[in-house]
């Protein structure tokens, strides 16, 4: 009995000691962290204006402000954040690259070779910001076998910005592990040349990459992409046809052949796009399909067809004629309503 009490007391004493040690350890960590943060804030305060002068106003390189210790590097990263994401000047990105390559290379190399994922991701994120991809080419990046999904995405994003050839190789290799949204984000950085190269590989791409590529082309608004986008109307994939039509619509390109083809489809989405695209074409050439779509089973298609007819200035005569002769009271109703609300001045009802 006495032994058990002694054992209990010993256990309590050991626990108390452990708690005291843990508390001391936490206090020490807290002290170290606040000291680290104070030094970082001091560095930021001391160097903020010289970096601003260097990055934005063609000031001299502030040699005394170049970060050497860990807290200074963190401070520099926080300061440079605004020159990456908020304001730039003519040569800001070259200067950011120069500093990262010349003075921070070793630091990021160490982080890239870390066993923990966090530091590796951090290094990749900064490389994406500063463009110092030379480090990756020295055996720290693309050819490394063990890569998490996050690392892969960061690598692809880096290469999409700074090395399109490596991007293409890496992208085709890991295409299936990337989502459509991620593809779109990366394609957005690519040059016209790299996008044209991806267009040439379009049939071999996976569907999510194809969709992302079409959406990207519509945002880029380059005339060179128009024939390719028009050709998508003959694709076997319904989603590709719809997205191709949407891209043409976004770019403001009308084409009667595309309208005819889409209007003939079984899906209402394609017919809807046919009605939308018809507003950029000559009314007389597309009026037959527009009046045909006005009687479609799907009300969204009918409404869009009516809206497109209303936007054409020379539609008035044909609208009168249609209203007189049509037996589809729903179509006549929606056409009347939209012509009154949105129609060109020639329509008197």
């Amino acid at each position, binding site marked *: 009995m006495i032994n058990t009490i002694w054992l209990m007391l010993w256990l309590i004493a050991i626990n108390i000691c452990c708690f005291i040690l843990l508390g001391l350890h936490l206090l020490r960590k807290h002290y170290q962290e606040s000291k680290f943060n104070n030094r970082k804030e001091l560095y930021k305060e001391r160097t903020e204006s010289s970096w601003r002068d260097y990055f934005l106003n063609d000031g001299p390189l502030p040699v005394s402000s170049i970060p050497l210790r860990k807290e200074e590097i963190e401070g520099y990263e*926080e300061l440079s954040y605004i020159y990456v994401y*908020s304001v730039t000047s003519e040569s800001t990105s070259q200067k950011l690259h120069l500093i990262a390559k010349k003075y921070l290379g070793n630091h990021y190399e160490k982080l890239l070779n870390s066993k923990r994922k966090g530091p590796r991701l951090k290094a990749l994120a900064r490389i994406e910001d500063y463009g110092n991809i030379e480090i990756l080419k020295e055996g720290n990046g693309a050819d490394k076998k063990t890569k998490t999904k996050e690392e892969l995405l960061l690598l692809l994003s880096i290469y999409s910005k700074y090395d399109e050839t490596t991007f293409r190789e890496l992208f085709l290799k890991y295409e299936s592990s990337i989502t459509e949204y991620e593809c779109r984000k990366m394609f957005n950085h690519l040059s016209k040349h790299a996008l044209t190269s991806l267009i040439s590989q379009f049939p071999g791409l996976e569907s999510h990459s194809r969709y992302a590529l079409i959406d990207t082309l519509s945002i880029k608004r380059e005339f060179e992409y128009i024939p390719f986008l028009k050709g998508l109307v003959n694709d076997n994939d319904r989603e590709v046809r719809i997205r191709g039509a949407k891209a043409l619509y976004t770019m403001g390109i009308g084409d009667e052949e595309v309208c005819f083809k889409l209007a003939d489809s079984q899906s209402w989405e394609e017919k809807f796009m046919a009605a939308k695209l018809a507003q950029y074409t000559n009314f007389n050439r597309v009026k037959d399909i527009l009046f045909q779509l006005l009687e479609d089973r799907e009300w969204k298609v009918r409404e869009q067809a009516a809206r497109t007819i209303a936007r054409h200035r020379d539609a008035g005569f044909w609208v009168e004629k249609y209203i007189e002769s049509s037996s589809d009271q729903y179509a006549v109703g929606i056409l009347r309503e939209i012509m009154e609300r949105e129609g060109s001045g020639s329509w008197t009802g």
Partner: protein
Amino acid sequence: MITVVKTASLFNVEEIRPFFELSKASIRRSRQPFTILILKLHVEIDASSRTALVQFLAKQIRLTDILFHIDEQNALGLLLTESGASEASALLNRLEERKPIPDTPVTSCIIEIRNESVELHQVLKLGIGAIQEEGLHRIHDFEEQKTEEIKVSIVEENSMFRRVLATTIESIHVKGIELKVQLFEDGQAFLESDWLKSAHTHIVIMNDVLPRRNGIDILNTIRQMPNQQKFFVFMMTNNKSEEEMILSFDRGADGIFIKPFNIRLFEAQIKRTCKRLWR
């Protein structure tokens, strides 16, 4: 239907004084300088030619311009209430091309007025002095305008970015304008500040995403204020979406900066906004 018939009214110097005072009083509010143009013929002409000349001048000027004569000098004056010196110069060129008495030498003097404390007799004295010699004269003595204070608010969460923008704005120098900058880190602080309540022209530069009240919300509030016209609102955004940009312009934004933007472009746009205030 109201028809305005333009007649060749010719005033004397005393009669134009109230118009001069009125134009002077509205310089600051309308930010519009006005000009007096004095024309002197160096040959004697008969009464009918003089009438023809007056009729011709009356036809060439705007309804807001006033034609007057300066008796003892054989001179005519034009009070151009809505024109600066450059427009007066263009008018002179037009008159020169179309003048009814072709070979008559005319001396002219352009006096632009931006200074609210000037008196009519001072202007005429200098003008009459100048036209004694042949040629085209320009008097700059009354172009000095009072410095106008313009408020600039920067509403941005990131303190370092706020300071970068403030430093850039403080480095902008526009003649006759002084920029007073104030920084806010969230939308609510900006809307609750007394800084907002004044008659000054106010340039607001703000992020679309802000703590407490976001940028679009602030924009809506500003545009619902009775004195909303004094605000020039520039939005900063990371969003490249065209729909979002259209929405911002619809709500009343005067400009949008997509981040990261070139600081020189930003500077040029703010400078241009300041310069455009004065015609």
